[in-house]
């Protein structure tokens, strides 16, 4: 187990190096000029700015400097927010995205299991039909439509009640997080519900459930210990990719709900060609995802003893 973990972590580091390299070269092949500004620059000022960001060096030297700084965990200074370090930007804004993501995952994971189990239990009856209809909506409607509708609904509810039940946008308290994270988790929740349903249905008909029933175990114990526990396994496997999708997919929700997350910063940085922020964010997210996948794999091995980690 330990040897396996260490091996995976080392592989992960190599992967991060690969991501950093790919980002660097993708970034530097972008046409356009990160220093261009509304007011035209004189040559002298331009040269000074280039020197400040090391743009006057040959590309490979820049790459070397970038890797050197990366080893020290330093992503440099932002181009647009000239006096801010990229590390500060990530430190301040990633927790926001992560909070949103954790809540969304919690909604998606717990909700998915709950609804999935319900539909399996009431197969082809009213609850099943209703939930599956909702699932179909959740899967097929784009997230930006949900985000806009969610906000509109909040305004209408607040307006109808005459006081503010939940804030329309912004960040700071749990009340601010509720609707955005629900919107963000909706697609994943729908997907997990479907997954849970089919895996429950498969297990209901399996030998060990039948055995458990015939040896007279109480129904509640069969349900929790045999059905739920086994049905959750496939849900855990897709959690890794789901975390990736949710944490990086938060752009739209962050934009619509005016949430100061890292995703919104990334989109802005791309529009502004803020090299250092783009590279910092991408490498950071890449490393984060690699790490999360490893964690989920290890977790899976721990939950399901049948899986041998090699």
């Amino acid at each position: 187990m330990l040897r396996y973990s260490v091996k995976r972590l080392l592989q992960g580091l190599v992967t991060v190096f690969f991501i950093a390299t790919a980002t660097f070269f993708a970034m530097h092949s972008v046409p356009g000029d990160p220093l261009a500004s509304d007011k035209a620059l004189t040559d002298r000022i331009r040269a000074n700015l280039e020197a400040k960001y090391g743009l006057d060096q040959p590309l490979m030297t820049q790459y070397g400097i970038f890797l050197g700084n990366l080893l020290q965990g330093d992503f440099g200074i932002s181009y647009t927010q000239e006096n801010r370090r990229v590390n500060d930007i990530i430190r301040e804004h990633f927790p926001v995205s992560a909070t949103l993501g954790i809540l969304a995952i919690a909604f998606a994971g717990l909700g998915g299991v709950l609804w999935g189990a319900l539909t399996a239990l009431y197969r082809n009856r009213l609850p099943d039909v209703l939930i599956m209809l909702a699932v179909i909506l959740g899967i097929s409607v784009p997230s930006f439509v949900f985000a806009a509708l969610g906000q509109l609904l909040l305004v209408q509810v607040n307006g109808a009640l005459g006081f503010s039940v939940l804030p329309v946008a912004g960040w700071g308290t749990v009340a601010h997080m509720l609707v955005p994270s629900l919107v963000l988790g909706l697609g994943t929740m729908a997907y997990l519900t479907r997954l849970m349903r089919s895996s429950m249905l498969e297990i209901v008909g399996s030998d060990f459930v039948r055995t458990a029933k015939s040896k007279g175990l109480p129904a509640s114990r069969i349900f929790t210990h045999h059905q739920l526990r086994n049905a959750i396994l496939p849900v855990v496997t897709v959690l890794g990719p789901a975390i990736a999708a949710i944490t990086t997919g938060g752009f739209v929700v962050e934009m619509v709900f005016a949430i100061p997350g890292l995703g919104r910063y990334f989109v802005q940085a791309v529009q502004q060609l803020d090299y250092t922020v783009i590279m910092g964010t991408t490498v950071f997210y890449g490393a984060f995802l690699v790490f999360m996948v490893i964690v989920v794999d290890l977790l899976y091995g721990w939950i399901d003893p049948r899986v041998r980690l090699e």
Partner: protein
Amino acid sequence: MAETSNLAGEAAFNRSAARQLALFGLAVLIGLVALMWGLNLLASLTATASGASPAVDAANNAITVMLAEEPPQLDSTRSTDQVSGVVLGHVMEGLLRYDDRGELAPGMAEDWRIDEAGATFHLRADALWSDGQPVTAHDFVFAWRQGLDPENASEYAFILYPIKNAEAVNQGRLPVTELGARAVDERTLAVEFERPIAFFDKLTAFSTYFPVREEFYRATEGRFGADADQLLYNGPFKLSSWVHGQSLQLDRNPHYWDQARIRLDRINVAYITSDPNTRLNLFKDEKIVMTGLTAENLTNALEQRWHIHRHMDGSIFYLEFNHRSGRLTRNHNLRKAMILAQDPGELVYKVTKTPGYLPGESLFPRFLEGIRGKFRDQHPAPTYRMDVQAARDHLERARLELGLDAFPPLVLLSSDSPVSNIQTEYFQAVFKKNLGLDIKIDRQIFKQRLAKMTSGDFDLVLAGWGPDYNDPLTYGDLFASWNLNNRGRYSNPEYDRQVRIAQSAMDAPTRMAAFAEMQRIIHEDVVIIPNYERGVAYVTHPRVKGILRRVVGADTDYTYAWIE
């Protein structure tokens, strides 16, 4: 299989399982609540719950507003964008400032004298920084040197060029100490001019001219203006917190000299979003005191029976031709054909539909003052009337002059903003319909568009210009052949001559005549196709009065606002 067990047993199992699920659901709920409580704790460590305050908080004499973007930084010597300008306009003050009627008023300077050779400013004794120390003439000299120091690479250095030796300092030809501005004593600032200038007083209200205290600047070690505690304030408000991307809190500055004019104790900037729908929703939910309206949400605002205001922000938008040699758009007849083939009225009234926009007629917008009255009233802009037949004649002439069989597609460069999308699609259709010209749209993100504008990689570009100071020259010198912002590289000795007259003449009639001449040349030479002058329709909270919209300076200005 399930069918083998008897129905009663199945039902019992289901009931029990449902009970289990309900328990599980309860556990999930409790878990979620616990998680959120934990996250709330975590969030409160990193952020203030600024989003919770209502639009108007009469008990604390505070209002809540939003910004479209995060200020990149608040170093006044280097700030370039409008959002920083708004924040700086609340927390800083220059030698002079604009009052609530939009006229120049004393700021840090209590009196001043300006002549052809230079200016002298006397600072007021009660001009203090937010730490209680006096604002001195040295602080201005330091700020201006900093703005011009090539190492600092300020993009707005050019606005300091009227000061003697400023341009040479900025280009590194002279040391910063040679700048023609010096502190005679703690409270007297003497400025020498490079050449006579008629509007230096207006410039001193601009943010690049704001003071910076040297010893504080040095102590921040390159992080000046990056956070609330990395700045000193001398304006009506001070920044007490700045959570990046989320909120700023402006509190009344107790050391500000003119306490009488400040009627609010606090301005919460609780939201930073450029999404018009979000802003409208926040206003509807009584979370912010003001929001602009777009064409798309205007009907909604009318249905809400809100009081709508209107303001012209002084920005002009136009199609700029590429006048570089070798470009087809260098041909006068082609340009004339294009300007005759379109109608800015149709663009404004039917396409952009934004309330407050006026069809473009001139390089000089309507707000500019002439001698007594508006410049545009005294010098009405000559305009073209849409005439498709004449346009086609000019196009044919252009074709013969250029020796072409048919026109190749022209490239129309634009940014990726929603308004320019609509415009480019409209122009593409108009020029195709009326002239048979093919237009290729080149939509680029902000920086790529600027890079292409600078390198001249376009035939036409959707461009705009906002005023830096309240004088027609801020528009007029745009098409001077030496101006780097003249991205189409229009070059005309006669136009240049008029710009030089306007730059150095001191008497208004000569200058206004020069501007009128520029207006005529731009029109006759079809340097640009004017599209519109931008206006904004906006709504304000009924209890908050005195919100100012300005053409130059902080737009929006809440320093005069009060709660009724």
